[in-house]
């Protein structure tokens, strides 16, 4: 499952993700990481059964952890099912089924935002993305 880890400016210089991985022995697969002066933001994959442990380890170190159930919002009203998004997505979130309807597999999304820029109809938006 995908989680988003928000790190405040006070803890941004501390290796809290590394510490949490060492403490729990739970693997994190980081797909996006953005840091600036004011905060840090990391999107990562963690196995569902280990979520609780990782959540506790990270939050005890001052991070805020949220589940990303739907990393990307797909506006079906705006979408014309052209498939522009299909070829730019690095993790194959989008595909066309046999009758050329667009299929969106949210679980694969790493929130890179390439499809948002590509979509001619502004039908895709990243969620929980401040």
């Amino acid at each position, binding site marked *: 499952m995908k989680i988003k880890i928000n790190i405040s400016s006070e803890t941004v210089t501390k290796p809290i993700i590394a510490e949490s991985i060492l403490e729990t022995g739970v693997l994190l697969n980081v797909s996006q990481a953005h840091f600036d002066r004011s905060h840090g933001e990391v999107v990562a994959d963690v196995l569902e059964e280990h979520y609780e442990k990782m959540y506790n380890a990270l939050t005890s170190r001052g991070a805020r952890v949220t589940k990303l159930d739907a990393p990307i919002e797909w506006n079906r009203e705006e979408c014309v*099912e052209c*498939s522009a998004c299909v*070829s*730019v997505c690095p993790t194959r979130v989008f595909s066309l089924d046999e009758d050329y309807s667009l299929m969106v597999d949210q679980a694969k999304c790493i929130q890179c935002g*390439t499809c948002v820029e590509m979509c*001619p109809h502004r039908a895709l938006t990243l969620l929980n993305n401040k």
Partner: protein
Amino acid sequence: MVKKTIHEINAKIRDGSVSVVTAEEMVDIVGELGSEGAVREVDVVTTGTFGAMCSSGVWFNLGHSEPPIKMQKVWMNDVEAYTGVAAVDAYMGATQLSESLGMDYGGAHVIEDLLRGKSVNVHAISHGTDCYPRKVLDTSLALEDMNQAIMINPRNAYQKYNAATNSSKQTIHTYMGSLLPRFGNITYSGAGVLSPLSNDPEYRTIGTGTRIFLGGAQGYVVGQGTQHSSAGSFGTLMVQGDLKKMNPEFIRAANFTGYGTSLYVGMGIPIPVLDERIAQAAAVRDADITTNILDYSIPSRDRPALRQVTYEELRSGHVELEGRDVATSSLSSFKRARLIAAELKDWIVKGDFFVSMPVERLPENTTSHPMKETEGVSFVSDIMSVSVVTIDKDASVYKAAKIIMETAFNHLPVVSKDNSLVGIVTAWDISKAVSQDKFDLVEDIMTRKVVTAKADEQVAVVARRLDVNGVSALPVVNGENNVVGIVTSDDISKLFARRH
């Protein structure tokens, strides 16, 4: 030879006995029955397409104000419309951009907003005349407030279109969407098997006056579209229809990042099956329609074709290119093209839509020639400084500072032992190093990622490269990466100062 007339087909539409199929269904029918059997079996084949068509727009008549105005300039929601005609007529083009929102909102959005029942803010100015005294006008108008809203699209329904990819190291943003670096993806447009003109490539039934489905309403073909190049199977159509009767399902504004706005237009054209040749042509498959994959990273109207490809390959989701399997994206919606062909079929079966013959055929064997340019074109070699001074990467920062002071060059290309370009150092880099008390080697303070130019490139292309990269000079290199000159933004400014 089996032959039918348009009157026989329209009589069957009237009495409800007409047989209509979509261009997709026609493939198997001709496959099974042959073209002669297909003419007996099928009266009309419907086509459909739904994609970005930039050459689109709407003529509005706004009604006369009191006192009246001869609009000299007019904006709708801050998007300018062309009004170099009579007093309150104006043409809103799809790609015209908002003066306040830029690429986020354009003429296409004004058209879609009106179609969805929204009002738009109208602002007009005029010099004032005895017959039209008013100088400024501000009002808010909805579609129903317009006397006419006639969509006239100068170039729609390309028979087929080039596919696009990108060989460069950066993502580029084009009207063919985002093209990822190093052949990262391929984009294409067009309905292939359902494409109107590809199903009547000899233009035997599609021409001036042909009744069509346009944006969910009945419209007409005006004639050949601009840039109609029938010789290369790149035919186009100019079409017209009544915006007031259209449906936002089939008319949609679009934004292409870094390019601007466009309008997705839904169009369907019926092909009356009058004889075997028409039947055979309407059985065209995706596999029969070929196009070229062009490298859009080459900033030229003559982009090199990397390979030929069929619509069948493009639609499969991946195409082999330069030894790799590259993912494809369609920019037009095949699902909605199908919907249009089915909807048009339904209209004809129900007796709501009659087929027509063109009153004039589209021109055959025409080509579009490139622009005649009368002003001389400037190349980098015309304006670059050839007396460029380079510096060795192992030289000291002190030496670099001394050269800059002595030569008045602000940029020093840095070269390695074999004289190939490895970096660039500017007066600013040196000031920065000095302010940090760093008196190391040039190599330690230079910028390693150098943006370069070639001597045979056009100045216009290089000017944009300076702009995009936010730099003020580019070393000019030859094929061996040796520095042969330098071109600066000053050189380019001087060129334009000379001209004007």
